[in-house]
């Protein structure tokens, strides 16, 4: 049984200017425990919406029009609050994820006390242990969030997530607010704790280079659709979709003497009126006449890869 299975999910936002289709028939799955799936896309591609839909945190003006979300086989849209598997979200801003008036210890121990039903001394013991696991000394139990640095706060948030032992962690750009050296440390930490504890993580980011470091598989999103799904290795070795290729060309690399970075021309389409045919065709260097009219399907290729592009449909 897949850990996460999203089937034909469509989500719309009601905005003053009209109905925006943030997700259009998105299907996605994370097959195994311990897997890290990267969800990549630019702003407005629907990557965060997908994360929020799975965690049940969609804002009030959003509506799930159709589709199913299963976590550990439980229907997240219909199951009662008590029977749902826990989904934990790590946000970009660690400071606001921590309660400013409680110590780190109180906040972590609370989870052990009230969610796992441990006794008070056991709870603080476990809280200390989990802090050490994320690389913070036990003495941080008595610290308040404002006494911690940005990286330490994100570590504390990860410790809370570990304490919860969720079925799925959704990390929404957790390192974006940190500087690069701390970013690397937090990424390593996330990778280690997820693999060691056999947790499952959906890692949402706009940064393909981060994906290369930590993810097993990647789904690339564009304008509310998944345009390519692949393992990280094959994605970087041989990107299939023209959008993915363009994204990779836009990343500076140290190992090759690339002449110049190539930006992707144009800007992402409006979700209020997405273009006809393939949504990427106005910006696609390989666009053909039929791309304007035909909506490409998600085509399965070898080794579990799939791509949404007419170039591959005729094969």
């Amino acid at each position: 049984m897949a850990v996460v299975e999203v089937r034909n999910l469509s989500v719309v936002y009601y905005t003053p200017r009209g109905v925006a289709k943030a997700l259009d028939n998105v299907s996605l799955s994370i097959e195994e425990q311990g897997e890290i799936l990267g969800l990549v896309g630019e702003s407005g591609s629907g990557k965060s919406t997908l994360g929020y839909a799975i965690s049940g945190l969609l804002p009030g003006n959003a509506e799930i029009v159709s589709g199913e979300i299963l976590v550990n086989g439980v229907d997240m849209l219909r199951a009662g609050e008590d029977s749902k598997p826990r989904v934990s979200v790590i946000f970009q801003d660690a400071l606001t994820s921590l309660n400013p008036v409680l110590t780190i210890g109180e906040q972590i121990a609370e989870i052990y006390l009230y969610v796992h039903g441990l006794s008070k001394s056991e709870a603080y013991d476990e809280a200390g242990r989990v802090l050490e696991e994320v690389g913070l000394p036990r003495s941080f139990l008595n610290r308040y969030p404002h006494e911690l640095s940005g990286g330490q706060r994100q570590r504390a948030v990860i410790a809370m997530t570990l304490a919860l032992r969720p079925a799925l962690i959704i990390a929404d750009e957790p390192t974006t607010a940190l500087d690069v050296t701390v970013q690397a440390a937090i990424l390593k930490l996330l990778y280690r704790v997820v693999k060691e504890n056999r947790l499952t993580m959906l890692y949402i980011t706009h940064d393909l280079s981060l994906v290369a470091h930590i993810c097993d598989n990647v789904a690339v999103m564009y304008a509310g659709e998944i345009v390519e799904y692949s393992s990280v290795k094959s994605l970087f070795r041989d990107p299939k979709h023209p959008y993915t290729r363009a994204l990779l060309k836009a990343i500076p690399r140290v190992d090759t003497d690339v002449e110049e970075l190539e930006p992707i021309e144009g800007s992402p389409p409006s979700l209020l009126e997405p273009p006809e045919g393939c949504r990427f065709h106005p910006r696609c260097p390989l666009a053909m006449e039929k791309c304007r009219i035909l909506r490409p399907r998600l085509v399965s290729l070898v080794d579990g890869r799939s791509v949404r592009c007419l170039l591959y449909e005729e094969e």
Partner: protein
Amino acid sequence: MLGRLSPEAKETLARFMQPSTIIGLSILVGIVALGVIVPLASPYDPYATSEDVLRPPLSEGPAWPYILGTDSLGRDLFTRIFYAVSIDLAVALVTVGLAVSIGMVIGLVSGYFGGILDSVLMRIMDVLISIPGFMLAIAVAAALGASLFNAMLAVAVVTIPIYARLMRGVTLSVKEQLYVTAAKEAGLSSFRILFRHILPNAMAPLIVQSTIELGNAIIYIASLSFIGLGAQEPQPEWGLMLSTGRKYLREAWWYPTFPGLMIFLVVLAFNLIGDGLRDALDPRLRGTLKIRRSIVWQLLKSET
């Protein structure tokens, strides 16, 4: 004791010690201290009448001099005024305490759960706030009899909406914080989220408001006593003393003046403390106080 405090705690303490808080606190502490000492030390019984009627301040008495003079029944005003401290302050504390605790819970629940519950509770608050406090107190006094306790109840009831509305507003903003979302996601109970995660983060404005309302409560209760619906003779209470004393304003100015002065000082003290707390607790000002002060210093220096 101060030596044990961490630097952060000292900094917090320094933030709270603003000039207005210090002045307000000193007035209040002075009055409370006298309110404790005078009833214990004074040779005069606040209830016992004597033949020394309407003596001016500092005139000779049988034991101590009559420091603030005597009233129309020959009772020592000094003793009575400070006897009234415990009554007036206790009344204010109980009234505000009652209103705050009820209003706080209503506001929390209303803001957190929202929906129909919110609408119903807030409409009830609208009804309450539309009733003039004095009218309700008069109605309560008419129905249950005029007494200090009934006056307290009436004042508490009409001030509940102040706290409920304030709390609802703060709760609405605090509940959108990520740590509340995280607590919900973790599956903590609503009770826990409300009282452990939201309440402590929403307390600051409530503390400021209730400090200022303590002053208002004193005025409220004194006014009700003044028109005869609160404390009853021979209870020493400032509003009541002011009310009976005003008839003697021409021949004995001290009789209404000193109780009135006490009301003035206590209300001033609570307002000063409330203002100071507002500055200290306002998160937007956090960390800027020192800078503000140093700017003031520099300005002062450059003037001279």
